[in-house]
């Protein structure tokens, strides 16, 4: 069995498990699963930017928040989740496009700082523009509106189980799309830019435009993840725009593996599992997460994903043992 076949089987199994989850699990595991899926989408976008294009952004929370706030504002007025999601994603995409056009003028640390500044700019807007964002108290009492477009209500999502399936479907689609994207000419070119900007430029590719494309897609993914949040939490508050939220996808990706496509997804899972498990035994879970980060950065920069990747490689033909370097 080839690595890709095996991978396909694993994905199928995982997807099936997720579909069946509500039948076996209680409401909290479902809630947790939704949190994981949302972070997975968020981190997938982030990793297109970091793992594939080589740009470490500390401002992704800004776009996450734009998605969340816009979706929330819509849900508070129009009872249509669809509209909320679309609106949130669109707003986040546009914001990313505009701020990205400025950000991609830099790379490396300056890019990181610039994105940090923009992210925190959005945070300060969420915090201070009280009339719209509710200020520090945020937007609360957000209804879990029916799915359909305005006018045609469609299925109710009153129960968390139903909403779970919305989140699941959206997340699966997001994964598939990203999977195709990284294996497309665009994906290959972005990886080329990561490894050698000048070389790509001298093949006739406008590097900055491609960086902007990656940045915008990452922003759209962040916005999508954010837009899924209000209906789940019924509340949206400034901390989700704060840079420490930007760190979540970074940590997840680092845990799962920057160099592997499944890294962010795996990482999102690990992130919450670690958190949830450790929290049950001690309130001090951050110190453990921190320790894990230190160990990973020093010892296993490939993350758990790479470990598994090499494992996969061993299980299958050596030719497919290329876990390092996203494909």
């Amino acid at each position, binding site marked *: 069995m080839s690595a890709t076949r095996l991978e396909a089987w694993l994905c199928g199994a995982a997807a099936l498990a997720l579909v069946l989850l509500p039948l076996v699990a209680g409401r909290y595991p479902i809630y947790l699963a939704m949190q994981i899926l949302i972070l997975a989408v968020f981190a997938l976008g982030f990793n297109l930017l970091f793992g594939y294009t080589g740009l470490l952004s500390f401002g992704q929370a800004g776009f996450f928040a734009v998605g969340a706030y816009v979706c929330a504002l819509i849900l508070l007025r129009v009872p249509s989740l669809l509209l909320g999601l679309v609106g949130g994603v669109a707003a986040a995409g546009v914001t990313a496009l505009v701020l990205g056009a400025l950000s991609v003028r830099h790379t490396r640390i300056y890019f990181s700082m610039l994105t940090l500044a923009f992210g925190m700019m959005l945070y300060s807007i969420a915090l201070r523009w009280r009339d719209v964002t509710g200020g520090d108290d945020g937007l609360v009492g957000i209804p879990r509106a029916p799915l359909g477009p305005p006018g045609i209500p469609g299925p109710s999502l009153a129960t968390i189980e139903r909403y779970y399936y919305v989140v699941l479907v959206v997340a699966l689609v997001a994964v598939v799309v990203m999977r*195709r*994207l990284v*294996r*497309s*000419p*665009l*994906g*290959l*070119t972005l*990886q*080329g830019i990561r*490894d*050698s900007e*000048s*070389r*790509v*430029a*001298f*093949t*006739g*590719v*406008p*590097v900055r435009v*491609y960086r902007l*494309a990656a940045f915008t897609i990452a922003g759209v993914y962040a916005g999508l993840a954010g837009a899924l949040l209000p209906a789940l939490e019924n509340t949206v508050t400034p901390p989700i725009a704060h840079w420490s939220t930007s760190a979540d996808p970074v940590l997840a990706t680092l845990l799962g593996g920057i160099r592997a496509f499944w890294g962010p997804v795996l990482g999102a899972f690990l992130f919450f599992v670690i958190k949830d498990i450790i929290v049950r035994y001690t309130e001090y879970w951050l110190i453990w997460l921190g320790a894990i980060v230190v160990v990973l950065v020093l010892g296993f920069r490939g993350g758990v994903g790479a470990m598994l990747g090499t494992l996969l490689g061993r299980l299958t033909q050596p*030719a497919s043992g*290329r876990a*390092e*370097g996203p494909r």
Partner: protein
Amino acid sequence: MPELLRVEGLAKHFGALRAVDGVDLVLPEGRRTALIGPNGAGKTTLINLVTGGLPPDAGRVFLRGAEITRLPVHRRVRLGLTRSFQIMNIFPRATTLENLLIPVLARLRRTHRPWAGLGTERAAVAEAEALLVELGLAGFRDLPAAALSHGDQRLLELGIAVASQPALCFLDEPSAGLNPIERGTVMELIRRLSESRRTTFVIVEHDMDVVFSLADWIVVMNRGRVLAEGPPAEIRAHPEVRETYLGEELEA
């Protein structure tokens, strides 16, 4: 031979240093040119100015009569101007095939496609594979480029450069850090490529034997200026060139 590249009064200063100091140059199509000169003569800077890596302080650059002085790199490439690098510059994590796929896709204007799998880019893949054969790297198709030997990586970089099917291609010390045998292969490849394709090569090279055997025109630079240019024989005989540059070469 129709004019391919024209450079007029090109200049670039780094603080006090006049790296390139008023260079005029005309390159006709199909003439294999060697660009020589002692270290710091301004060869690499000149390439950077012409190919768009650096903005010039003064002067103008024309490709096939059209001015390209201020064009961004990728636009110049699309007009048929590209280069290779003195310091190895390939995509180490990508496979050998993918290394060539990027420039081919770029030439076919397909790099932006986000949806189609690479497998479906049949034309591009076929072309890249053909080039792999031409480079003699077909055996390493699916290996990460980093796994290739230094010499093979040089060949690959050369391949990346010609994969964009440029009209004019600057090769900045394509054999840097290679042993004589590997160097031979690279030069042989350059010769073959320049015959099999409509690409005019400008080569920066230190090995005079290579230069004189490969080039049918030689441009000598010194202190940011063009000291002399002409066919190998002429240059060999050129007194100034001899003393400032070739002298020690010949003694050596």
